[in-house]
């Protein structure tokens, strides 16, 4: 009974999010190389994003809306990547020099 009532997945997700955010702070307070910092940020960000998708947004649950879900994800990924790499393209790689 208790097992059904207690939202164990959400609590795990919440704690994991806090831990991952704290881990990412290592970039500021730790003394790592630039490459190591980027790796730390990418790995924690990826885990963080998947936690959101699986524990809070229940991406694995319903079968009948799978297609819409993945189209949405692909669209979100497209917009996110375009924004990030487009900004880099404008201000770093393609900047007039």
């Amino acid at each position: 009974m208790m097992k059904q009532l207690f939202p164990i997945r959400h609590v795990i997700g919440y704690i994991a999010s806090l831990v991952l955010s704290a881990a990412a702070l290592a970039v500021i307070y730790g003394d790592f190389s630039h490459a190591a910092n980027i790796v730390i940020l990418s790995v924690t960000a990826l885990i963080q994003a998947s936690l959101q998708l699986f524990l809070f947004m229940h991406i694995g649950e319903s079968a009948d809306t799978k297609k819409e879900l993945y189209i949405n994800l692909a669209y979100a990924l497209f917009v996110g990547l375009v924004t990030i790499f487009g900004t880099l393209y404008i201000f770093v790689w393609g900047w007039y020099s």
Partner: protein
Amino acid sequence: MNFDIEKFKVHGEPLIYGAMISIALASIGIVVGLTVFKKWGWLWREWLTTVDHKRIGVMYILAALLMLFRGGIDALMMRLQTAAPEMKFLDAQHYNEVFTTHGLIMILFMAMPFIIGLMNVVVPLQIGARDVAFPRLNAVSFWLFFFGAMLLNISFVIGGSPDAGWSAYFPLASLEFSPTVGNNYYSLALQISGIGTLMTGVNFIVTILKMRAPGMKLMRMPMFTWSVLITNVIIVFAFPVLTVALALMMFDRLFGSQFFTMANGGMDMLWANLFWVWGHPEVYIVILPAFGIYSEIIATFSRKNLYGYTSMVASMLIISLLSFVVWAHHFYTMGQGVMVNSFFSISTMAIAVPTGVKIFNWLFTLRKGRISFTTPMLYSLAFIPIFTIGGVTGVMLAMASADYQYHNTMFLVAHFHYVLIPGAVFAVIAGFHYWFPKVFGFRLNERLGKHAFWWIIISFNVAFFPLFILGLMGMTRRMYTYSAETGFGPLNMISFAGALGLAIGFVILVYNIYWSTRYMPRDESGDPWDARTLEWATKSPIPEYNFAVVPNVKSRDPLWAMKYDKQPLFEDKITKIHMPSNTGKPFILGVVFFFLGFFLVFSMWIPAIVAGVGVLIVLAAMSFDRDHGFYIPADKVIKTEKKLGGGTV
């Protein structure tokens, strides 16, 4: 806490004192009126607590009309100030505030809510649903938008309006160069209403994907519903960028962070970048639903089905993707290299292709149609050539090297008014005339409607065409005055005359609402235009449950098929209907958010924290609300249907 009454005051202009007095008088008038006519209870029960998508839609449209006049008065003041050389009507600061709020209000608090209002009224009806997927969330969306808009509007008399342009470019908008609270209002008012819009986006995607009547496949949806679906997808992916950018702006201005400053690793140009990553898709958020409205109206009044349905859908999908890869064309002159500008030039010009497809589809829908020239149809027909001029000048601006000549001139101002006014304003007016009888049960008067149309259409061109020439002559946007030697005077005077004509047109439009309410005969049929789609298959005015019986859709134009091909639409029996109950919490949430925003604007931390806790409390109260709605019994539904008369069931 650094409380300082001086910060609240706006000094100087008799115009501002006039505005203060009129706001005070209007507020007193409303309060006295409601008390005298004992309407407080009615207001609370029927409107402030409603979760009915139709009423929420009507409130959106009312707010949008009010804002249209507020933004329109801004426009008149600007045109008057520039009507002749060396005018002394407004000073530079006041002029800056007026063009900033004009842009903000027209885009975010007029075009957006007008479109979201039509969306609210029409989409659930077009897909045969009884409400949106999350009726309470819908009310939350509306009240957040409404109080965000109110927060921006009081800035004019309390503390001073934002004055760095509607795009609020840094470093101008930073605390260093804009020390007044104006741009705090900008970040907070937009943030609050933006959250509401984001929730609308989620709500309508779910509604359209999950609540369609049986048989209505995606490719059988009316074109307006398709355009709304795609628009909301853009909202959901574009608005988070604005949310983040505004939050960073707020941190910069209130808490001394350095995201957009020019020192300490800050990057002022990143604001322009993020703003347009949101801002360009935003343009399509207001224009795609307009395309949907025109598609409905042109098909109805040509008495033909829409030409090229599949290519219409495909071109909107392509536009939605392309809208995310063109944003740098708003700042070609900022300093990025040739490769970057070439890329964004080409992606921008590519948008002309799917848009052209749509123009030809409308023309082919008209071809050999039996066209009736009603008011909504006139706006739709006027849209095609005027929008094409706007589009072609857009392609001119899209060429990066040529843009160095036009950049930030009146040519640009003329261009975006030539796209946004036919592309959004004419569309919402056309949609307003078209769906008005559905909501209120009578049509707007055609003669007055056409009068307003001709005033608006002619004055629009008189007001904005001279700006193309002024731009090429070298007049830049946002200049508050000029000398007689520049030779800008005569064309600006013509433009001012056009602005006056537009004002007359809009006054006639509103007079038409008043006149028609008093004198127009009621429409008994529920289908006054002989239309094609589901929203006309129910009674007008629409009963609260929308459809007594859920329709069974078998084709793209189900009502047309029912009327002319004898295809049955309502085959089930009337049963009890499940409805959501009203709630006052969304309204209270909006009020609390308003105070949170207001206190943050003035850096009054303790009241702001109290209001912030208040927001959390209301949210928690909403989460623990156990209300499963109520049922309307079948015999009551039958009685209502009989009373509304006419008949499909």
